[in-house]
C-alpha cells in the first residue's frame, strides 16, 4: 500500500512554551537563547519579522531590546522537555504509529486513514492548541521527505492554515509548487550540499525530483539517491518506533567562562556524570566504559588549543554514580594539562547493557545490592523533590563555571516551588 506519512511540529516551540505561562510575551518579539545565552535558538513570528535569523549571536541583535521591545530568555529545558512529552503523548493518539524525531516534531503514520488528512491535521491543530496552548503545523506526503517538505509549505504558505498535503494537489500542481522551492529546503540537503547541487544545475526541489539518482549516488552517497526516490513518492525510510534503549549516553555543556583549574573541571565532570547516570538508570542499563573529553575554544585563534579525550574501561559494568564519578575523574586527571583555557567538558557512557544482565565479579557481587538501593533512593528523592535535591559533593555547590542562564523562566511544570501564579 502507498504510505501516507505526516510530520507534525510545534511552531516556534521554545518561545511558544514560554508564552503559555507568561502571556505578557504575546504579540511582541521574543527570542530564546542557547546554552550560555549565546545564540538565538527560537524566535517568535514578531522576532522573525524584525529579520532576526536563527543562530545569530545575541550581541548582534541586542539593540532590538531598546528599539523594538525585544524580550529574550535563557533556555529552560525542564519546561520544554515537559511540554514536549505532553505534546508527543497527545499527537501519538492520532495515529497507530509515531516516531518522535526531535523535541518539537514527530512523524505519524496516516497510511490507510479514511479521513481527509487535511481535516485530520486541523483537528490535531485545535487539540494541541487547546490542551497545551501550542500551535502545530502538519505536512503530509507519501514519504518522510515529502512530509517534511509539506510541513515547510504548511508553515510558509499561510493560505494552508498550517496543514498541507501533497496529495490534495494534482501532479502538475505539485510540480509547479516544487519548482518554487529551493533545493536547500529538502530534508538532509541543507547548507552544505545545496551549493554543490546548484553547481550541477539542481536548484529547486523539482530539479532534484527529476535528477539522475544513479549519478547522485556515485557523486555523493546512497542517501541522495534515496532522497530522489522519496521525492518521487517512494517511501524508503520507515517510521522508527520510539527509540528503545540508547546505546550511548552523552552529557556535556559549555562553561559560562573559560575554565583553567583542575578542581573546577572535576566539579563539572562530576555534575555531568550525575545527570548521565540518572539517564542510564532510567533506561535500566549499566555501562562498561566512561569517556571524558574537553576542548578549548576553537574560535579563539590566539589561545593554545587542546582537545583531549580519555576512555576509561570499568572492570564490571555499573550504574553506580560513585563508580562512574571515580572513573571520570581518573580519566580527567590523566588528560588534564594546565595552561589551557577550557570551554567545554563532557562525559559519555558507552558499552551499555541491560542492568540485570551484568556479569558479576566476586567482590562487586557483595557491594551491588547496596549500591542499587542507594541509587534507587537517590533517584526517587530527586524525582519527587526536584533535580539535585540529593547529590554528590564532588559536583561542587556554587559551581561558578556553570553557564549563565540570566533570564531563565521558572520551571512552571516541574517544580512545586515555581508554579505559575494566578491573581
Amino acid at each position, binding site marked *: 500500500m502507498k504510505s501516507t506519512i505526516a510530520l507534525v511540529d510545534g511552531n516556534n516551540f521554545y518561545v511558544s512554551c514560554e508564552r503559555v*505561562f507568561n*502571556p*505578557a510575551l*504575546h*504579540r511582541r518579539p521574543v527570542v530564546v537563547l542557547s546554552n550560555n545565552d549565546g545564540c538565538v535558538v527560537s524566535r517568535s513570528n514578531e522576532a522573525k519579522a524584525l529579520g532576526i535569523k536563527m543562530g545569530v549571536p545575541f550581541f548582534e541583535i541586542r539593540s532590538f531590546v531598546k528599539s523594538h521591545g525585544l524580550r529574550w530568555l535563557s533556555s529552560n529545558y525542564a519546561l520544554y522537555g515537559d511540554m514536549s512529552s*505532553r*505534546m508527543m*503523548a*497527545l499527537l501519538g493518539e492520532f495515529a497507530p504509529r509515531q516516531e518522535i524525531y526531535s523535541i518539537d516534531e514527530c512523524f505519524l503514520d496516516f497510511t490507510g486513514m479514511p479521513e481527509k488528512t487535511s481535516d485530520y491535521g486541523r483537528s490535531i491543530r485545535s487539540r494541541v492548541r*487547546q*490542551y*497545551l*496552548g501550542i500551535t502545530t503545523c502538519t505536512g503530509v506526503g507519501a514519504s518522510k521527505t515529502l512530509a517534511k517538505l509539506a510541513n515547510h509549505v504548511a508553515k510558509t504558505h499561510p493560505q494552508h492554515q498550517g496543514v498541507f498535503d501533497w496529495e490534495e494537489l494534482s501532479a502538475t500542481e505539485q510540480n509547479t509548487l516544487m519548482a518554487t522551492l529551493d533545493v536547500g529546503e529538502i530534508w538532509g540537503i541543507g547548507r552544505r550540499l545545496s551549493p554543490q547541487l546548484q553547481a550541477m544545475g539542481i536548484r529547486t526541489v523539482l530539479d532534484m525530483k527529476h535528477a539522475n539518482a544513479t549519478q547522485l549516488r556515485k557523486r555523493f552517497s546512497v542517501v541522495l539517491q534515496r532522497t530522489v526516490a522519496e521525492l518521487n513518492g517512494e517511501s524508503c525510510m520507515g517510521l522508527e518506533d520510539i527509540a528503545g534503549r540508547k546505546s550511548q549516553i552523552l552529557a556535556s555543556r559549555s562553561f559560562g567562562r573559560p575554565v583553567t583549574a583542575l578542581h573546577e573541571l572535576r566539579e563539572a565532570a562530576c555534575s555531568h556524570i550525575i545527570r548521565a547516570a540518572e539517564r542510564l538508570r532510567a533506561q*535500566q542499563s549499566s555501562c562498561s566504559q566512561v569517556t571524558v573529553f574537553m576542548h578549548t575554544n576553537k574560535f579563539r585563534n590566539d589561545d593554545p588549543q587542546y582537545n583531549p579525550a580519555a576512555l576509561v574501561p570499568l572492570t564490571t559494568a555499573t550504574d553506580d554514580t560513585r563508580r562512574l564519578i571515580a572513573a571520570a575523574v581518573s580519566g580527567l586527571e590523566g588528560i588534564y594539562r594546565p595552561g589551557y583555557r577550557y570551554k567545554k567538558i563532557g562525559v559519555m557512557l558507552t558499552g551499555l547493557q541491560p*542492568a*540485570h544482565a551484568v556479569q558479576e565479579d566476586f567482590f562487586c557481587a557483595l557491594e551491588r545490592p547496596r549500591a*542499587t*538501593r542507594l541509587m*534507587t*533512593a537517590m533517584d*526517587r*528523592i530527586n*524525582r*519527587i*523533590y526536584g533535580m539535585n535535591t540529593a547529590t554528590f559533593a564532588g559536583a561542587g555547590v556554587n559551581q561558578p563555571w556553570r553557564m549563565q542562564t540570566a533570564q531563565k523562566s521558572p520551571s*512552571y*511544570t516541574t517544580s*512545586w516551588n515555581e*508554579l*505559575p*501564579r*494566578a*491573581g
Partner: protein
Amino acid sequence: MNPANTPSRKSSPSRRIPIGVPLSPALNPDRQALPLGACRVTAGFPSPATDHIEQRLDLSEYLVLHPEATFFLRVKGDSMTGAGIHHGDLLIVDRSLSPASGRVVVAALNGELTVKRLQRSRGKLTLKAENPAYPDIAVNDEHEFQIWGVVAHVVHTP
C-alpha cells in the same frame, strides 16, 4: 521495569520489599505506590491480608483526569475567597474542559493570569470575582484576553 521494584500479589510473604515506602504516598509522580497490605513479614504466619492486596489509592487518579492537559497553578490574592479559593491554594487546571458559563477559569488578561468565574450572557463575557471588594471585569476589545483553562479542583490547606 525492574521486577524487583514491583511486588506482585504472588510474591512470597517472607520476601523483603526493596526500597519500600514511597516518600509521598499521594500525588506520587511516578505512581509506584505500594499495594495496600504488602507488609514485610520475615517469620511467623503470613499476613492474612496477603490475599486481599489491592492498589493503594492515588490522589492524582482522582484529581487529574487528563494528565497532558492538566497544569498546577498557585493562587495569588483573595479575589475568589467566596468560591473557597484562597491565597496560596493550588489550582488544578484542566485545559481539555470547555469553559462553560459559570465555571471558574484561569484567563490570560492583559499579560497576566487571573482566576475568576466566567459568565457568558448575550454574547458578552464577564470575569466575576467572588469577593465584593473586587469589581466584575466585562471583557471587551481593549483587553488582551484569552481563556487559559478551566479550574477542575482546588487544593486548600486549612
